[in-house]
Structures are given as structure tokens and as C-alpha cells.
């Protein structure tokens, strides 16, 4: 088990290195000069050269890379060109917002998906299953971009019950020690802040969760129905267990294994989806930061964020390996 994980970690290193090098080179060879964008109109060539040297952009690309690597090794990812502040500090202050949003969306998707799949398997072949199929089909056909904007129109404007921008109400000043505001509000028993944070997070989280929920429902329902034809299920029925118990206590665990492997990759799509959803809801996470960096051609920031996203994808894949093993004890002795 430990060996599998270690080898997975080692496999991730070249991928990570490849991504970092490719992005580093690409952002430097493509047209569009970030220095020119920083200077006011009418700046002299000397100003231009000075600023270029300040950000180290006057050296050759391999030299720039070595310098970047040396600094990155001690946690210095340079300064953001557009925000005039350290990349690492900016990313660290924004990352918790994204992680909390993605975790909430993931949790919603898993809970709703499992509930819908179990209900669909329980009433298979009857109208509840048909209804669940229709809803999941529709949820998948409509992209999260449209879901998010529709949610803003319906629940933010038409029936204004939820806020549609930001992470918390400006009137609430959160003097928290960390940026994991939701977690900290729970630990501090700060009900007022918790409710406000949740009210801001629920729409973006639902929009992120919806496509993922639909996929979990579909895959898990198919595996559940397959498991229900197996001998051990027959045995459980012979013992006199009811349909609910057979599904939840017997079939669910086995059906969860293929579902985890088949839908796991969607978790990385969920992280990727935060970029757009944060933009739509003006949510202050790293996704919003990434789009600003791209629009401003903020090289150090793009570079740092690509590294963070790559690290998150690797972490998710490792986590999925762990979950698969945890669900299937036969693998842990391999």
C-alpha cells in the first residue's frame, strides 16, 4: 500500500516538472509584453529597460528559469506584476476560499448523488427512477456556466433570497486568524458568521456540484443495479432483509468502488470549474485571481497558479487512490 502510494508520488514528479517548464517557456515566448502594460503612456525606453531588469525579464529563458527555480526552492515565487505584491502571499491568502468552496461542492455532490442513486435503485423500473434519469440527463446537458447564471437570476434577483457576490457580507467584519473562514466560524461557534458564509457559498457550490452530482448518480445507479443481481444480494434477501437494507448495507459498498474510480477524474474538473464559477459569483478565490492574472499577463502569478493547480490535481489523484483502497480491502494486501 505504502509502496503504491510512493510510486504514485514519484510518477507525479516528472508530470509536475513538465507542466512547470512548458508553462514557463510558453508565457515567455508568446507575444504580449507585460512590462509595456505596466508603464504609463509616454514612458521612456530607459524606464522600460529598468523595469524589465527589475523583473529579470532581460535575461535568457534558461537563465530566468534557473533563477525562478532557485527562488521557488525557498518559497519565493516572485512578485505579482499587476498587484505589486508577493505571489506566494497572495495565493496563500486566496487558496482557502477556493478549497472550502470546492470541498462544499464535492460534499453536496456526493450526498445528493448517493441519495439519488440509492432512491433510483430502490424504485428501479418505476416512475421515481425515470424522474431521476430525466433530471440527471437535463443537469448534464446544461453546462455549469448556464446553471450558475440561472441561479443568479432566479434566486438572487427574481426571488432575492441569497447573495450573489463575494464571500461574506461587508457589514460583518471577520477578524479571523486564518482564511479558512467557514471552518474557523464552526470552531469558534460563530453562528452568525457561519450562516452568512454559507449563504454566500451555497449558490456557487450548487452550480459546481450539479454536473458532478449527475455523473455520480448515473454511474452509481448502474453499478447498484448490477450488484443487486449478484448472489450475495440474493443471500441477503433469503435471510429476509428488506430492500432498503439490501441496497444500503450490502450493495452500496461494492457499487461504490467502480463509482469512485469512474467519477474521480471529475473531481479535478470540479477544481478546474472553480475558476469560472468564482468569476461568475465574484468569489475571492484563486480562480478569480487566475483570470485576472491571465487578463493582465501577470507572468509570475500565472506561473505560481499553474503550479498550485497542478499540485491540487496530483493531491486529488493520490486521495482517490487512498479512497479506492479504503473501499476495497482486497487491494490493501497487494
Amino acid at each position, binding site marked *: 500500500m505504502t509502496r503504491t502510494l510512493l510510486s504514485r508520488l514519484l510518477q507525479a514528479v516528472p508530470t509536475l516538472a513538465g507542466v512547470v517548464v512548458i508553462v514557463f517557456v510558453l508565457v515567455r515566448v508568446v507575444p504580449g509584453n507585460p512590462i509595456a502594460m505596466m508603464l504609463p503612456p509616454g514612458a521612456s525606453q530607459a524606464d522600460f529597460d529598468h523595469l524589465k531588469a527589475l523583473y529579470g525579464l532581460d535575461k535568457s529563458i534558461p537563465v530566468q528559469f534557473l533563477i525562478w527555480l532557485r527562488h521557488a526552492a525557498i518559497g519565493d515565487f516572485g512578485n505579482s506584476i499587476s498587484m505589486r505584491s508577493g505571489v506566494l502571499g497572495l495565493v496563500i491568502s486566496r487558496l482557502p476560499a477556493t478549497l472550502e468552496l470546492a470541498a462544499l461542492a464535492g460534499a453536496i455532490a456526493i450526498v445528493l448523488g448517493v441519495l439519488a442513486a440509492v432512491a433510483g435503485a430502490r424504485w428501479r423500473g418505476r416512475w421515481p427512477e425515470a424522474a431521476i434519469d430525466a433530471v440527471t440527463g437535463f443537469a448534464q446537458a446544461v453546462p455549469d456556466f448556464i446553471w450558475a447564471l440561472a441561479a443568479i437570476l432566479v434566486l*438572487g434577483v427574481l426571488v432575492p433570497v441569497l447573495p450573489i457576490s463575494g464571500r461574506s457580507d461587508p457589514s460583518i467584519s471577520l477578524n479571523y486568524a486564518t482564511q479558512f473562514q467557514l471552518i474557523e466560524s464552526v470552531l469558534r461557534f460563530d453562528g452568525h458568521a457561519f450562516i452568512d458564509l454559507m449563504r454566500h457559498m451555497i449558490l456557487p457550490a450548487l452550480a459546481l456540484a450539479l454536473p458532478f452530482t449527475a455523473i455520480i448518480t448515473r454511474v452509481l445507479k448502474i453499478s447498484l443495479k448490477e450488484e443487486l443481481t449478484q448472489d450475495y444480494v440474493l443471500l441477503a434477501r433469503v435471510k429476509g432483509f428488506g430492500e432498503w437494507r439490501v441496497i444500503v448495507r450490502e450493495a452500496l459498498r461494492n457499487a461504490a468502488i467502480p463509482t469512485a474510480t469512474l467519477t474521480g477524474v471529475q473531481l479535478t474538473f470540479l477544481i478546474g470549474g472553480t475558476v*469560472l464559477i468564482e468569476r461568475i459569483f465574484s468569489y475571492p478565490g484563486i480562480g478569480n485571481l487566475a483570470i485576472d492574472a491571465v487578463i493582465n499577463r501577470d507572468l509570475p502569478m*500565472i506561473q505560481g497558479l499553474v503550479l498550485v493547480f497542478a499540485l491540487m490535481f496530483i493531491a486529488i489523484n493520490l486521495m482517490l487512490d487512498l479512497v479506492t483502497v479504503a473501499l476495497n480491502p482486497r487491494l490493501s494486501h497487494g
Partner: protein
Amino acid sequence: MVDAAMQGPVIGQPLLRLAGNGRVLIGGTVLGLLLLASIAAPWLAPFDPLDQDLAAQLQRPAWGGHLLGTDSLGRDVLSRLIYGSRIALEVAVLAAIPTAILGTALGLVAGYFGGLADAVISRLVDVWTSFPPVLLSIILVALIGTGLTSVIVAIIVIDWTRFCRVVRAETLKQRHMDYIDAAVVAGLQPLAILSREIWPNIAPLVLVLLTLEMGIAVIVEAILSFVGLSISTDAPSWGGMIAEGRQVVHQAPWIMSAPLLALLATVLALNLLGDGLKAELDPVLK
């Protein structure tokens, strides 16, 4: 004469049959209307889509005046919506067709020749699809610069895998059928086998994927317009209109609603059409 008489119904019948499928009919009708709107835009649009009228900002939808209201620069929302269909259709066609050609070609090569070609192409597909497409498209457009052409290039570069994966699997299946062996024995060159024997069998599948890809392309363009990485904000694109409407959604929700509904209708129509075509063209499903 006889030939022509024979051919008429042969071509006409499948079309009639397709029109009899409800999903194809609805999807096709919506798309037909869209096509009509984009062609007839100069006659249909009551105002110039770029005409600003700062005295008439954020006007409510009203009969006789601006049917769908005006935006924050006083431009007519309905006219922008109608002209926006041009950008949507342009991307749908110009992005989806090259994507289909590239993906299909690589899928055919991988599936038919196998070996090293298959190993390289399949590995490439695996790496490609392990990144979230929206994130990848934003990074790509950031690299190659903003604009409609960049958006189209990004869609082609990212989405060819959708075709490649399916076409490869199908070609692999066909490759082991007797009629291919017969063609090989008959001395046909690989290129001839691929184009004359295998392609007709996978063409319906590619057509279905193409329909779905058009929907994806329209959405991707809208997303990139929304975040400000596609066509300039002056141009009437649905995504750009949504981004503008989002800013003033509390005062003027109609600005965002109209392009959002148009986008939804387009994507659902393409999905319906794809599903309907799949059901009609797939001999297994019939």
C-alpha cells in the same frame, strides 16, 4: 431517367425518417431559426447593435420601443441578441468542423495502424483529457492572445480528443471485421480502406459527435467572452452581453436573461439533435 427516379426516394426517405423523430425535429427547428436570425440579422434587428444612446440607458423592455430593453450603454438588447447569433454560429461551425477532422483523422490512424502510432496518440489523449477543459482553454487563450480566432484555435486544440477516442475505438472494432480482411486481400491500400470502407461506417457516429461539439463550442466561446478573453466587448456576443448584464443584474435583469435563454436554447437544441441522430443512425440502438 430510371436512375434518377430510383435515387429520389433513396435520398429522400432517410431525411423524412429523421424529420419524423421528435428530437431531431425540435432541435433542427431551433437551429433553423437561429440560422435564419443570423442570416437575416440586418433586416430583423430593429436597431444597430453597436449604436450607443447614453440618454436611453438600462431601459425596461417595452412594446413599440426597445422590445428587450437597452443595456448600460443604451444599446438595443434585441438587436445585439440577433447579431450575437452570428458569432455563436460562426464558432459552432468554424471550431467544431476542424475539431472533428483532426480528431477523426488521428482516431482512424490510431485505430487502424495500431502499434507505435496508437501508443503515441492514445497517450496524448490521456494526458490531454486529464486537465479540466475550461481551465485549459483559459490558459491557452492567455498564451496565444485573446480574440475569436484564438478561441476557435483553443477549442480545436483541446476538443479533438472527444472525436479521437470514439473514432479510434470504432475503427479498432471495424478493423477486425471480415470485410476489411477482404479489402486487404483485394489489394486495397490502407488509405483507400480507411476512406472507402471504414469511413462510411463511422461517419454517422462522427456526425452525432459533431452536433454535440457545436454545442460545446458555443458554450466555450460564451464563457471566454464572459471572462473577457474572446471577441472585444463592443461586439455583440452572447457571452459578452451576459458579462455586462451580470454587472447590473439587480437594476436590469433583462440584459442578462435574453442571451442566457438564447444560449440555453441553442445548447439544448444541439443536444436534442445529437441524441435524436444517435437514436436514428445507430443500428444497435434501433
